[in-house]
């Protein structure tokens, strides 16, 4: 007979289930990237995953930790990282980012659960700083089996940054372009383009209760409000809110990265604050920063505030003064 400790029943949800479910919800977006950019995208994803798992295994072996390479968390980090990279990212750049994400973003702190920053974003930001050229060379669409050759060009966010830096009006956007941005038929990082598929994945995570609405809604909402104010004041020099919402990595960041349970605050209220912070910083960087895209930096910065948010925003303790006996 087994003794064991109570409770003697547990939910079925465990770490592996959570990780593989999130991976599954990312797959449609990743497949869209593979469809749009073909073999270049497959290469980036494959290299990222292989290096991440290898790094994790090697490090766990090295410090004689229990091996948990197959719990899905390394694959998730690798997939997330890959989705933020340009489709034509050279294999060694991808490999470096993935190695860095796992080694420095996660294992150095003790592995899953102990990392203060989202590992995929740590990897990405290191690449942005270390390999700016490779990180901003964007392939035009060349769908799988289409026979279209690989050419390069600029992303919508890049266009806006160029206009901003040269004090020109932002380029006009037509409705069908917004539609293309929404469905993914546009240039950019390999897994960030199809907002539609990312949202569908997010809805499933909401339904499974692995994320809550608080962070995505407050992050995107803040982006809309903040960019909206500037757009209303000066539409010639500021892109409209819809553009900000649909472009770059906002959707991927808001749904899949800012909501990373390890690095976001614990309570719903804390998450609202966190999401709003992410949204605000994203827009500040996009409008006035040196990078066209601010989502990664914004989330990492807010990650560093998570412990503080958690300290100040705690749940109501039963029987504590407030609300006791006076409802």
């Amino acid at each position, binding site marked *: *007979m*087994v*003794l*064991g*400790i*109570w*409770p*003697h*029943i*547990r*939910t079925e*949800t*465990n*770490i592996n*289930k*959570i990780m593989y479910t999130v991976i599954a919800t990312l797959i449609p977006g990743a497949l869209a990237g593979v469809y749009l950019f073909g073999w270049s995208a497959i290469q980036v994803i494959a290299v990222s995953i292989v290096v991440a798992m290898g790094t994790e295994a090697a490090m766990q072996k090295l410090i004689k930790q*229990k091996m*948990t390479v197959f719990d899905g968390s390394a694959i998730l980090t690798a997939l997330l990282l890959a989705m933020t990279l340009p489709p034509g990212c050279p294999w060694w750049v991808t490999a470096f980012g993935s190695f860095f994400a796992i080694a420095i973003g996660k294992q150095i702190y*003790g*592995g*899953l*659960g*102990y990392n203060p920053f989202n590992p995929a974003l740590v990897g990405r930001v290191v690449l942005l700083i270390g390999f700016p050229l490779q990180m901003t060379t964007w392939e035009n669409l060349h769908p799988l089996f289409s026979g279209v050759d690989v050419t390069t060009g600029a992303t919508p966010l890049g266009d806006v940054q160029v206009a901003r830096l040269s004090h020109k009006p932002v380029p006009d956007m037509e409705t069908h372009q917004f539609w293309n941005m929404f469905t993914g038929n546009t240039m950019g990082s390999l897994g960030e383009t199809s907002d539609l598929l990312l949202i569908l994945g997010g809805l499933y995570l909401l339904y499974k209760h692995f994320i809550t609405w608080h962070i995505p809604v407050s992050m995107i909402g803040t982006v809309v409000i903040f960019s909206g104010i500037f757009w209303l004041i000066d539409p010639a020099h500021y892109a409209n809110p819809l553009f900000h919402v649909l472009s770059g990595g906002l959707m991927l960041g808001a749904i899949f990265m800012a909501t990373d*349970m*390890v*690095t*976001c605050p*614990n*309570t719903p209220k804390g998450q609202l604050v966190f999401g709003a912070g992410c949204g605000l910083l994203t827009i500040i960087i996009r409008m006035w920063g040196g990078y066209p895209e601010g989502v990664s930096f914004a989330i990492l910065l807010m990650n560093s505030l998570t412990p503080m948010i958690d300290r100040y925003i*705690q*749940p*109501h*303790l*039963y*029987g*504590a*003064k407030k*609300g*006791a*006996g006076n*409802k």
Partner: protein
Amino acid sequence: MMKGNKFPGGIHPFYGKEFTEGGKTETLPLPDKVVIPLSQHIGAPCKPLMTIGAMVKKGELIGETTGVIAAPIHASLSGKITNIGPSPHPGGNQILSMTIESDKKDEWIGGFEEHPDTLDIDIETIKKIIHKAGIVGLGGAAFPTHVKLNPPKTKNVHTLILNGVECEPYLTADHRLMVEQPNDVIEGLKILTRILGIKKAYIGIEDNKKDALRIMEQAVKKEGSRLVETHVVELETKYPQGGEKQLIQAILGLEVPNGGLPMDLGLVVQNVGTAAAIYEAVRYGRPLIDRIITITGRGIAQPKNLRVRIGTLVRDILSYCGGFAGEPGKVIMGGPMMGPAQYTLDVPIVKGTGGILVFPKEEVSVEESRACIRCAACIEVCPVGLLPNMLSITAEVLNFAEAKKFHPLACIECGCCSYVCPSRRPIVHQIRHIKMDMASTKKKVVMVT
């Protein structure tokens, strides 16, 4: 019928009540022997009044209280005392117990004073009867009932809540009691409200016990004006709805002040089983020597609700229920959320036992615990508003000083946090560890000053 409010947090586990909720309560035939622990309540253990070799009758006092927070203990069958010594207790430790071997006559000691009309006895006498009958809270906490019925004069007690929730999965003993003996519960309620001079009462029942809700409602209606204002309240099925504090929150929307008691709000909460036991004691003058328990789970051949004598060994009860179905994995005393697992079948039923739950081998899985991934699931389900993850993390590194900042004493040990944790962290145990550490440091301080 009233609808209850909600309390925050809580979980919806697999309830498994269908094994036994429709099963009429049977009475276990006379066992060959019983092992009666001399401590079956919170508080100081009783002093044995018998020696080995003595002959006792059913209902005879065998353990005398030594403190205020204690309840006397009686023989549950007639026969010979064959052993007095430490024996396994469902709580996991060894406790001084008396073994009685049956003389097969099953005789009462007699001399009980019956009261066909419980309303014509004076209150002090009733209180004495309840005290002498050894009644404790039958919901699991086993707090001596007479203590709750003597609130300090400074507390203006005005409302009684009867707890008919039985929120632990699998257990159906209270459910069957309400369905089969609603009048005993109502008579108990009458006695309780009379003792406490209370003008208002609620009976809280979860909405997964529709028949009990209906039957209790009818019983209340039938009594009409002979009862104080009484409402049957239909509550959401959610664990731990039956926790005293959660019940109060769900019925009245009130929170018991931190570190306080329901009495501070003018409330007294009693389990429905306790109410029925009070009635039986007052009406027939007999002490508490048996109770209804549920024997259930997929590891049991014939799940049942059974009336058993206090002290009956789990082994004997299981064999009456057809024994194990397949290879047993775990035998749990009580429900799966808070009941302790047993290492031996020679452990007796005590006053606070609500059931025996057996999981077959294939239902028992042991997963290793991992680092907290900060998923916050535990925070979401904690009905008290704690940060179980922080308590768990700080306890893990034995940083008790830090752990104390997260209000460990407010934890009701419901286990919701451990239930949901995807990292399989033993959170409740870690919190108990912190509490024990706090208790021991407190003692040290007291000794010094």
